[in-house]
């Protein structure tokens, strides 16, 4: 009952071609760069990637796309300060895009983690993004039926982790990470600090260890925004 592994490479070794992979983060905050780069090194391809965005610059998800490993993106906002990688792949027809409103994306992921196969939301009613989806009226107002989202793997960036996988997050780097940790068959976490069991106050645990499979310490992790401002390219 110790979920610690020794390296990002070991942590992502089991990700196979064709896997559906949720990747935490919103822009650069909370993006598990070392896990993504280990996945690039590992070589899995034909991936479906779920993230709010679709990469920025030439690191992280953008690098994964640039290395032609991503068959499909499910995201709300495939734009960024430097979206050239996704934009070129998309306009060349090399990558599929499922565009989802941001709140619906978050709720679909949370539903996947909570065992809710479908729910209703007013979001997107009457728009192009609701086309083909069932509509039902509750209390006089129309709502769109949305389905859960699950993944084979989630790549998560946490601040502190204990050996059982209890997690905390740093500031707004929390974003999609806790709900993605719930929604994947195998949840892989990079934490800036691994603390002993009992090192996180039970009232301050954000993600309980039941949602976590593997934890690897990445002290002083790269921050995507800082990498991009420095013009970094991976590999």
């Amino acid at each position: 009952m110790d979920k610690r592994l020794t390296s990002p490479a070991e942590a992502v070794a089991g990700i196979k071609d064709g896997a559906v992979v949720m990747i935490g983060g919103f822009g650069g905050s909370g993006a598990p760069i070392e896990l993504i780069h280990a996945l690039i090194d590992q070589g899995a391809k034909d991936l479906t990637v779920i993230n709010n965005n679709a990469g920025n610059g030439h690191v992280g998800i953008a690098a994964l796309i640039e290395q032609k490993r991503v068959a499909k993106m499910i995201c709300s906002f495939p734009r960024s300060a430097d979206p050239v990688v996704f934009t070129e792949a998309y306009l060349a027809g090399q990558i599929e895009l499922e565009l989802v409103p941001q709140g619906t994306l978050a709720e679909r992921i949370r539903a996947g983690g909570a065992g809710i196969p479908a729910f209703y939301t007013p979001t997107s009613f009457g728009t192009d993004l609701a086309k083909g989806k069932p509509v039902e009226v509750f209390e006089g107002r129309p709502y769109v039926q949305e389905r859960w989202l699950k993944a084979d793997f989630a790549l998560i960036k946490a601040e502190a982790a204990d050996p059982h996988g209890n997690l905390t997050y740093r500031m707004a780097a929390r974003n999609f990470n806790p709900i993605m940790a719930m929604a994947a068959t195998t949840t892989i976490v990079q934490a800036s600090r691994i603390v002993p069991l009992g090192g996180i106050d039970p009232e301050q645990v954000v993600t309980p260890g039941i949602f976590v499979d593997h934890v690897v310490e990445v002290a002083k992790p790269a921050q995507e925004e800082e990498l991009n401002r420095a013009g970094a390219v991976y590999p």
Partner: protein
Amino acid sequence: MSDVIDIEAIKLSNAQIAWRAAQDIEDGAYVNLGIGFPEMVAKFQPKGKQAIFHTENGVLDFGEAPAKGEEDWDCINAGKKAITIKPGTAFFHHADSFAMVRGGHLDVAILGAYQVAQNGDLANWSTGKGGVPAVGGAMDLVHGAKRVAVLTDHCTKKGEPKLLAACTMPLTGVGCVTRIYTSLAVVDVVDGGFVLREKIPAITLEALQAVTGAPLGTEGPVGELICPEELK
């Protein structure tokens, strides 16, 4: 009625049933134990196998009951009994707690039963006889856990079978039970039928079938169900 008398003499105690169930819990498994009898399972974790217990009211990986007089009543389990924290404990709210249950994150849920049907239907929340109905988390726990195990006397106090062709009491869940630990046997539910895995040596297969309300199939040899005598 001689069969019934024999069975009362030879059957396993609740502690022995709980002990047997505990032997199947893998190291690192996330486990929810139903209120009452199933809670005993925690006492019998085999050495070297560390289970992590979940309770519906928002606590994971809690510690043992505190000493009498040391209770903190803000730190309780779903049975409203006092528990303690230990290194690794996490608190969370009720919707997150049931996301763990219903989202398939538990490895095992262990529950009591009034009746279990050969297709895995479970009745454990209402005898259907009136009074104040109460369901708690039972209907949630039977969905989502990878294994749903039941602990039960093999027969009612009147000697009637609790393992049946079909439940007669109100259902808790449809086709949800995967394994039944009884006072006489270990029975799996496979493809709509009971499969006998183990029985106590003191009962014959024929006698066991006689107190079981649906056919007990077998797949290969039937193991001997032997539990520590000191738990009798």
